């Protein structure tokens, strides 16, 4: 009998990353979305 309990967790990381990408109006952000990584992405947009 194979487990399938974790399947429900698959959607969460893409949802969060997509939200950040949408907020910053960028094409892509590598995980992990640490505070510093998000800050750097925001700084790059402003530059």
């Amino acid at each position: 009998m194979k487990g399938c309990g974790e399947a429900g967790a698959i959607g969460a990381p893409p949802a969060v990353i997509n939200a950040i990408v949408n907020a910053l109006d960028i094409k892509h952000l590598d995980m992990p979305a640490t505070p510093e990584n998000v800050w750097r992405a925001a700084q790059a947009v402003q530059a």
Partner: protein
Amino acid sequence: MYEFNYQRVDSVSAAVAALKKADDGKILAGGQTMLPTMKHRLASPSDVIDLSGIAELRGIQVNADTVTIGAMTTHGEVAAAADVRKAIPALASLAGNIGDPAVRNRGTIGGSIANNDPAADYPAAVIALGATVKTDRREIAGDEFFTGMFETALEEDEIIVSVSFPVPRVAAYMKFENPASRYAIVGVFVADTSAGVRVGVTGATPCAHRGLRLEEALAGKLDSAALDSVALPVDKMNSDIHASAEYRAHLVKVMAKRAVDACAA
């Protein structure tokens, strides 16, 4: 940990005498730094001198001008003390946000400032509030107490008895904390004191320091917009797995502005 002699002393003078007599003695306050260090075998004192039996070192006194906290008073005790919460709420809430409840139940103000971890919270408050550290032999001004990474003005066998904080008009502490340890990646304590607006910064550099550039920009007024133009030296900031030097420089400004806004509110 390696073997050591454990001594429980009942007075400050007995503690100093025990330290002098030991080959390589260390004081035990709350043990929140020293015991893990010993378990990692990064420290192996010959003698551990436990201050927990010294009643004189515990307790909090509050009057109109000053909050005096005994060196062996725990963070939990400071956080819960109604008279500290009334006199210097920022200090009570700083204590209440150190580590976690288990740490706060054991960790002490004396141990925290004697250790002077670059990411500890209390040093920022001691500096910003212009506190006085009373030891078994003298008084040391907060501005002069923290001298380097894990270094203080204390002599080898000197023991902190209490810390006295002048009550400010208003104060606030903002910390950008590590999500696991709750240590300050950056912490800024702003106080409007009788000597003007003072800023203490921890977490950002190897040793907690007075935020002189921030104080200069504020020019005595609690208006965070004045901090927008401040340029902090990135090359002085710590850089590690938690945050780069550039991000810390940015965070100091953000936490400073939030602390100033909290004071002005």
